[in-house]
């Protein structure tokens, strides 16, 4: 008998449909699995055989052939266990799988259905491809049920699935996961009220958050760079629904979604260590590349502490995503594109020992060493960072006397208002404005334009630097609610642009 069951394999954020055909025929007892299966799929034979036997089902003692079509596409992952087992069971009993239904899940030897990564992505793509129903591991049913109009059958055990298909005991479908906004669920870790003094850096963070601009904090150890950066998630507005969905899909691919609350509203904050590899930061792996830290930080913040300690090649690879908000990685399985529209917040010491420019402690670095340290940072990467600001160390004795700043909540309100203004006007944040679009905005007072041009020339800004300063000025104006970009906005923007890294 022949049975066919639908499933899919993942290729980045896309799922490719796979037809699992099982045929048992007369002949010597054998279990053949064909159709360009990678090792993880080939191993399905052993899991499936045990699972079927341990469910009290009969495993055919005939010549059994399982074909994974289309045959020229390489298949990876353990998600095909369940559809293979179901196809074999159906071929044995002569049953048929329900129409427009797909199966996904890994099997344990006792027949339990185990979690697989990327169920949300698979569910979205299957729905788009015209499927009405998916059978997924019960652990992942919550994320699959985020997709509207898709019936999700949570599978706990192979025996139950077979019984359900035979019409003996129906499994209740998973209710649609509630995606209503829940603001109490996520409390940010740090609040700006804990930051004493540091008015310049606070302002820079506010501008960065309001316009989506990249930011470099430079200052001696213990000056509060990390603290400031960690305040960012708390002043960013919560994710929009479609943004939360994109974030959840990346997490789903990595098996990172929490089953109870698959949709998170707080913006991601990723802080990879400076020893991170290229594959870890940008994305990689064999077959199809998995998303890296920059994609995990999508719609959120990527914080790179000790920027100069990162491998130069890793930093170079940041350039493409910084410019266009996504990254394309090619591996043996093919090339995939992941979203990577993050706000980069980098922190660096002014010199290797950290004390250059400190009012109290003396820097012990030789000029040549400092030069080499800055060379690692300089050039194309720094040119893409809009805001550079020096952070000073506040001596412990004075810390208590420093004025307490505003708390995160009022700052977040200002940022939200500024962001709304940008989205209403141009549909994206200022940092993502293309130069052509930037020029169309009736937004620069004639005098300010001259100021910008004059100083850009004097200070040798690149064309990119010129436009970036303009965008930051636009954000400063938006924070103020000003229609036109004035001189003061341009000067503030240039002030951040021209800050020396050795500060």
């Amino acid at each position: 008998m022949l049975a066919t069951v639908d499933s899919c394999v993942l290729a980045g954020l896309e799922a490719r449909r796979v037809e699992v055909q099982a045929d048992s025929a007369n002949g010597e007892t054998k279990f053949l699995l064909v159709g360009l299966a990678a090792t993880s799929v080939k191993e399905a034979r052993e899991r499936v055989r045990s699972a079927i036997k341990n469910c009290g089902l009969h495993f055919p003692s005939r010549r059994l052939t399982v074909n994974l079509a289309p045959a020229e596409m390489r298949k990876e992952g353990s998600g095909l266990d369940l559809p293979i087992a179901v196809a074999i069971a159906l071929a044995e009993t002569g049953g048929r799988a329900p129409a427009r239904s797909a199966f996904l899940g890994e099997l344990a030897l006792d027949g339990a259905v185990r979690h697989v990564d990327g169920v949300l992505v698979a569910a979205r793509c299957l729905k788009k491809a015209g499927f009405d129903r998916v059978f997924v591991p019960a652990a992942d049913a919550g994320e699959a049920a985020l997709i509207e109009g898709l019936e999700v059958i949570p599978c706990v055990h192979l025996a139950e699935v077979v019984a359900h298909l035979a019409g003996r005991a129906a499994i209740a479908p998973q209710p649609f996961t509630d995606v209503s906004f829940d603001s109490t669920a996520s409390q940010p870790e740090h609040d700006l009220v804990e930051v004493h003094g540091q008015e310049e850096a606070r302002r820079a963070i506010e501008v960065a958050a309001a316009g989506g601009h990249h930011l470099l904090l430079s200052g001696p150890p213990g000056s509060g760079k990390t603290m400031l950066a960690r305040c960012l998630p708390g002043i960013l507005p919560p994710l929009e629904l479609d943004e939360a969905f994109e974030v959840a899909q990346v997490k789903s691919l990595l098996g990172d979604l929490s089953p109870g609350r698959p949709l998170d509203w707080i913006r991601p904050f990723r802080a990879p260590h400076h020893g991170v590899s290229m594959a870890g930061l940008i994305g990689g792996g064999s077959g199809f590349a998995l998303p890296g830290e920059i994609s995990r930080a999508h719609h959120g913040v990527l914080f790179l502490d000790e920027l100069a300690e990162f491998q130069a090649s890793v930093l170079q690879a940041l350039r493409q995503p910084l410019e266009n908000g996504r990254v394309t990685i090619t591996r043996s399985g093919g090339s995939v594109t992941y979203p990577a529209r993050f706000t980069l917040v980098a922190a660096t010491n002014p010199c290797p020992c950290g004390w250059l420019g400190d009012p109290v402690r003396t820097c012990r670095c030789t000029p040549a060493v400092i030069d080499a340290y800055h060379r690692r940072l300089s050039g194309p990467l720094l040119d893409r960072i809009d805001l550079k600001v020096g952070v000073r160390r506040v001596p412990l004795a004075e810390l208590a006397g420093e004025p307490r700043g505003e708390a995160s909540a009022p700052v977040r309100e200002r940022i939200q208002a500024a962001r709304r203004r940008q989205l209403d006007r141009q549909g994206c944040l200022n940092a993502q404005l293309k130069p052509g679009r930037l020029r169309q905005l009736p937004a620069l007072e004639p005098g300010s334009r001259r100021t910008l041009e004059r100083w850009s020339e004097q200070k040798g800004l690149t064309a990119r630097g010129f436009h970036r300063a303009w965008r930051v000025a636009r954000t400063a104006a938006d924070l103020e609610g000003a229609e036109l970009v004035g001189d003061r906005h341009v000067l503030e923007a240039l002030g951040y642009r021209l800050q020396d890294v050795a500060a």
Partner: protein
Amino acid sequence: MSPPDLSALNARGRWPLPDGPRVAIVGSRRPSPYGEAVAEQLAADLARAGVIVVSGLALGCDAAAHRGALVGGGVTVAVMGTGVDIVYPAAHFRLAEEILAAGGALVSQFPNGTAPRRHNFPARNLTIAALSDVVVVVEAVQGSGALITAEAALELHKEVMAVPGSIFSPLSVGTHALIRDGAGLVQNARDVLAAAGVGREVLDDPLAAPRRLGFGLPPERDGILIHLSDVLAVSAAELARKLHLPVAEVLGRLTSLELDGAVRRHGPGYVRALRRGKERA
């Protein structure tokens, strides 16, 4: 350490030197903007009075002194801690060429091909003292190489002078200690010329100096400038607090002043620029 044998020095350029008083101007490799301006101004004024300016071709005060001497149209000598064929730091290659072109010299007690070695520089400092009639220390933290030069000068019975600075500046701790121990106080080039025994020339009125250093600023901006020092950097945040203005506004106004050349960034803060509009690398 014994004084070096001046007749055995290797040299490029005009050597032996023409007659005339020789003044060494030395100081920190990482001076404040004030120290850098003083070194340059002093060297320029001394060069105009016919003094040969001696220094060590190092970063900071040394380079400023050589540059000032060239601006004043004088002859200047760089005493090097490497062979005369190796310019260290390499960034001063052009400065070295300019010194030679202006009729000065690069000299060294080390054979050609000697690479920069930490232990060679104190010996070089001795040579600076030995070559000069007066040694002026501009800015020096405690334990600075410039203080070695001053000590060597004392042992060789040369005149030692020092430039005062702010009592808050660590860069003036060394110079203030020298003054306390009896070094001559330098307020302008005349003080140095008097010590060198060429006090006839009247160069300028010390009270007129600030104008030449370039503070003729539009009055409405003084609101910010009077709060800035020329030695110690003040951050935009501190200024904003003093002036009761939003930090964004202060940052913009500082940038405007910076672009006009009236203010310079120094580390994470701002200082008054002592010369207008002449940005140096």
